[in-house]
């Protein structure tokens, strides 16, 4: 039998695991953390300013125009929603596949999902001309007759899909966290800490009868989340695929979007994990280089899928013989926005090929840089889809260009401020690694260890 590599490094006991993980919540962070959060807050302020101006004066502040009705907001929405996929995938799909290595990264990946979906969720609201009326997208009883919503519109599907996804991810994340919150509560010396974490932990005490139901619900949620996560990005892709526009009107979009989402999500997890490993050295024992390598493998695999989708789109555009379709794809690669297409191809297809080399897969600086490139590439993938299809469609008379304004940049970069602010707060306020899930896998790969009974 091949000896498995240990999932957790160092000589750990249950007690040290608890201490390692909870210590982050129980201590004050160092200056680098404060610098990080100050940077994130600065970006967040930019976000608030940019979006505030846009809401106050109108969507015209951004670069969107006629014919390019969707711009940075929608691109960034799809980008963040895509990011959000890795978390659920790690926590739910890998859970169902009994991938034990997921345990130490699942919590943070899920947190990333929740924050990414929260960030993403703002964009469809803020991209509307009258965001204060965005609640009209909900079919609530009203005094207008009543007037319901248009269930045929992919945007209504989006509302249902994204809000369901956000709710279920948050519940999943939170339910997974409840035992760990109880741990913090029980360790708390400070009265307020005890109260707050006590309230958050819902009074969990870890009895066997509760664990029994808990594990069942956890599995059910994982089982429900799996089709959900696939549906969400499929539905987001319907925003495009259901439209008549050449370049959007494509049946490959749902799987293509899901693969791209996993791709970008894992890249973001790698980015974050690399940062967390640096910020919290003790986590290196839990988030090992093996974890990172596994994720890089997934990045490479999904990168290839995305690359296949790019190729297939071109093939179908030519094979279908639809002149508009053929034109739009030629225009994507060689039109005025051709540069964005090649950024996308370079970042998403070419650069991840470096992961064929084991050394690259296990090298933190390399993977960090690659993951950043993948994130850039995936943003540009949505850019390519949104902008290049809109800017030249059926009638040449209505062709136009899209030029971003400062507010576009504010909205895009500012959204990272929101995301990182939430993420940095999370790292310090909530158990960043699932304590209750890590402990059972302590024995994996350890021979003769008293705890291992696997």
């Amino acid at each position, binding site marked *: 039998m091949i000896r498995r590599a240990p999932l957790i490094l160092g000589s750990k006991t249950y007690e040290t695991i608890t201490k390692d993980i909870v210590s982050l919540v129980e201590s004050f962070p160092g200056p680098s953390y404060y610098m990080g959060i100050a940077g994130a807050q600065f970006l967040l302020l930019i976000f608030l300013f940019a979006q505030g101006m846009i809401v106050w004066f109108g969507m015209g502040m951004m670069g969107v125009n006629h014919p390019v009705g969707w711009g940075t907001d929608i691109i960034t929405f799809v980008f963040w929603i895509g990011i959000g996929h890795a978390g659920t995938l790690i926590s739910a799909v890998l859970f169902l596949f009994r991938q034990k290595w997921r345990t130490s990264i699942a919590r943070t990946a899920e947190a990333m999902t929740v924050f990414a979906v929260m960030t993403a969720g703002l964009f469809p609201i803020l991209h509307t001309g009258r965001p204060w009326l965005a609640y009209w997208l909900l079919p609530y009883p009203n005094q207008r007759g009543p007037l319901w919503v248009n269930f045929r519109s*992919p945007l209504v599907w989006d509302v249902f899909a994204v809000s369901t996804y956000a709710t279920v991810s948050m519940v999943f994340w939170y339910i997974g966290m409840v035992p760990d919150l109880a741990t913090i509560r029980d360790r708390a010396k400070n009265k307020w800490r005890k109260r707050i974490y006590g309230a958050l932990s819902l009074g969990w005490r870890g009895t066997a009868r509760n664990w029994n139901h808990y594990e069942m619900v956890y599995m059910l949620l994982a089982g429900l989340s799996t089709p959900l996560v696939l549906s969400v990005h499929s539905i987001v892709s319907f925003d495009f695929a259901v439209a008549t526009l050449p370049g959007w009107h494509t049946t490959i979009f749902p799987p293509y979007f899901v693969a791209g989402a996993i791709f970008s999500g894992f890249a973001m997890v790698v980015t974050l994990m690399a940062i967390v490993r640096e910020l919290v050295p003790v986590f290196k024992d839990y988030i090992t280089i093996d974890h990172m390598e596994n994720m890089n493998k997934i990045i490479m695999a999904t990168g290839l899928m995305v690359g296949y989708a790019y190729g297939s789109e071109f093939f179908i555009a030519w094979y279908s013989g639809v002149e508009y379709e*053929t034109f739009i794809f030629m225009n994507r690669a060689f039109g005025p926005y051709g540069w964005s297409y090649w950024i996308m191809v370079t970042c998403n297809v070419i650069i991840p090929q470096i992961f064929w080399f084991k050394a690259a897969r296990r090298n933190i600086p390399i993977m960090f840089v690659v993951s950043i490139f993948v994130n850039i590439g995936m943003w540009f993938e949505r850019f390519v889809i949104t902008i290049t299809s809109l800017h030249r469609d059926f009638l040449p*008379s209505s062709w136009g260009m899209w030029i971003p304004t400062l507010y576009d940049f504010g909205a895009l970069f500012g959204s990272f401020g929101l995301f990182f602010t939430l993420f940095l707060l999370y790292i310090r306020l909530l158990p960043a690694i699932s304590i209750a899930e890590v402990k059972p896998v302590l024995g994996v790969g350890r021979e003769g260890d008293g705890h291992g009974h696997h």
Partner: protein
Amino acid sequence: METQNTQTPKYWMSLEQWRQDPEFQKLAEKEFQSSPLQSDDGKDGWARREFLKLMGASLALTSFGCVRRTAQKIIPYVNKPADVIHGLSNYYASSFADGFEGLGLLVTTRDGRPIKIEGNPDHPANRGGMSTRGHAMILKLYDPDRYTGPKRNLQNDTRSNREIVGVKWEDLDKAVIEQLKKGSIAILGNSCLSPSTQALTDDFSAAYGAKSYRYDDVSYEPLQEATQKSYGQAGLPRYDFEKAKYVVAINNDFMGTWLNPTLYSRQFALRRRKTADMNKLVVFESLMSLTGSNADERYRIRPSQTLDLVMAILNELLINKKVSRFAGDAAVLRAVSAFAKADVGVNVADVAAELWKNRGQSLVVAGGVHSGIENAAHIHVAVNLLNAVLENDGKTVEPVGAAVVKPASANISDLIASMNKKEVKTLIIHGCNPMYSLPAAAKFREAFNNVEMIIYTGDRNDETARYADYVASDHHSLENWGDMLSLDGTYSIQQPTIQPLYNTRAMQDSLLVWAKASSKASARVKGAEDWYAYLRNNWKDLGRGKASTDDGWTELLRSGVLSGVTAGGGSRTFLTAALNEIKPASRKSGFELAMYETVALGGGDLANVPWLQELPDPITKITWDNYATISPKDAASLKLKEGYHVTLTVGDQKITIPAHIQPGQADGVVGLAVGYGRVGAGKVADGVGQNAFALAQWSNGSRVTSGIETAVAVSGGRTELACTQGHHSMEGRQIVVEETLKDFIKNPGGTVHRHKMFSMWSGHKYKGNKWGMVIDLNTCNGCSACVIACQSENNIPTVGKKYVIEGREMQWLRIDRYYVGDPENPDVVHQPLPCMHCDNAPCETVCPVIATSHSDEGTNDMTYNRCVGTRYCSNNCPYKVRRFNWFQYSEGIPTPHKMAMNPDVTVRFRGVMEKCTFCIHRIRNSKSEAKVQNRTLRPNEVQTACQQSCVTGAITFGDLNNTEWAVTKEFTSPSSYALLEELNTQPAVRYQVKVRNTEELKGAPKHHGEGHHA
């Protein structure tokens, strides 16, 4: 006449009462002041009740339903005029003279304010259609830059300072009359179409011994001069394009800007529509004009070759073919043969042969600003000869007589001469803006120093007003009485439709007041209490007795047109002596500058109307600028790209201006539009473009606007031109379908590639009305009047140059223009594109909140108040006809402009989508009216604004479920097709194929699926 309410059109009753009864006037003012707007902010005294609806406040309040609303008030009339019913429009027939073009108006008013200009269906010049400027002139009435009262300019000796103060009319009159009594008076006026104003001016001149001089910003002096010389009689010719089967236009834009383009377009279209006997248009031109874009055959010549070309055709006919009665006339042959060597670069033999074949039903026209070369009258003499040779005189062209535009005894060069001789103590300027449109070389400005007092009757602080001592600020024509004798010989009446907004006075009233002060005033002047009385009196003669009785006058005001009376007509003979002076001009080298009028701005009089500034030029599709147009070949050799600056140098005058590469323009020619570069026209026009007239030449006392030798240098720098259409090729797609006449007659619509569509279900049924539209690309000439009509009807805002560049223009109806074939000399097609009201509308499917949905009458409804502004509908619209309110545009509308708003159409707020509604409010109003009258809609009762304004009748609208409506036949005719049919959107708008009367199309028809070409 069809109107939308039960009332017959009304004439204005109360203005007389107001004038005569000071008490009544006071009362009326009070009534205006008690408007809600007044009570709210205390500044503006114009508003009526309906106005409230325009106010942002009420919108904001109603958006938040749960907030207790603040009170709104209802201010009823104290004494309601009998004709005015709140919520219904009244229509008044009137007239509008746009330069030399006389248009019959039907002014829509609501609660005493005009809100829209429509064409008077009874007026033969436009028959219900309306030109761009005719629609737009309503905004000049509500122009915030108008003078609100008479002004005095405290000039120093050199008239270089600007100290403008308000003055009372009494004081102005006192000062003016005192000055007039000194004698030596000159009146500089335009070629006024109003016979009564002319009579009054004559009376005034007689009273003071004043001398009249003539000046028009856009002048037809060469044509008038040539008519005088060619036939020995004054006046302008009257053309009948309907009778002409073969039309040759030589550097002449009769469809867009020349003389009576609205009338000519209509006549041309009437013949165009007779496909069995369709006309053919051959255009020789330097620039790409609207007429050239509609040509069946188009050749490029330089402006300096205009005369040579006419002569070449004559040469072909008279010398080579030896036809016509002039073939033996030695004088004629001598004149023509002098041009035998002139190179026109075009073989005219075929054209000449066709002309001769169609003699008697052909027509040759030339002239206009862009052929205003030196001795331009010679061109017209030659053209007159050509029309005489072709036996067109009395058939397609006939004299209209001296009555229409009374020939002037002297022009501005005479005036300048006498001013320099210090023979003028007082100068009265009206109806023209010479300080804008005269070249500096004319030295008009310098001559001012020899004049004691200049009185100007303009309406703003424009180029001329700033040199005047007194500005007797004039009414807008919608505030004034008047009359008109248009070039087609029709007499019509102009009646005011609103009480004067400001303390202005009709120019005619000013003249009358001043004339009365003279002891030598005629009885006619003395007997007239005011301008209205004078006019009424004058019409006792003009009106052929019809205006003598009150009933007759009332009837005249109702119809607006003196029917059955037409001035002019008769025959004339070409005098060969006219040819004596005509000799070939010396050849020009280098670039020739050709100025031209744009369809929107013309001579620049209405430049301060934002609608016109933002109207995409029918050819270039550029807004908010003028630019140097240059041919693709020249641009390549100058290494010039779109928007790069070029410096045009003529003598010591220079203009640096962005360049526009214009396909189809003649090589070696630079085009430059006049009407831009205004100073003092107002906030909208000032600083937009450059004044091309600065480069005009002054030669023998007349302005030369074309064929000017100019140096062109690329000067670095770039300006982005606000172009609404960035791509000019159809990319081989089936968008505008063209057919040759031969193909069309054989199998109409045969070249349209039809798609087999199938649907999984049968679709919704439309049981009642089903609204649809057909646009005939064959008669549409792209004049863009419909765009402005739509803008006026539907409260569409303008957004300004910056936002047009960003692609945010708001016009609901756009006209796409594509070039077909070789960019050196392409064919041009125009395609108006309203909302298609697709039965399977892609926009509706994707709207999350049902803000856009289908009605059971087949219209695609846009519910603004439900829209949250996702813009998904616009993305999913294959035709991209939707427009988004990126900002709160209504905030930017100046207060007086708001009075021109249509209360039937919601003013859109920020963040909502809008688009063409098929004028649903007109449908609703008509249906409501029908219901009130216990009937169903009459066939063709509902007209959309674009359809109504279309002078060529290219747009048909109506109920597709009722064969009595004209649209049903058109919709199902084999030559109609749906745009992007293969998407199965089932548009309710279809197009009729464009027929070109040529042997072969430049863009050969091909199946659009066969790939695309660059």
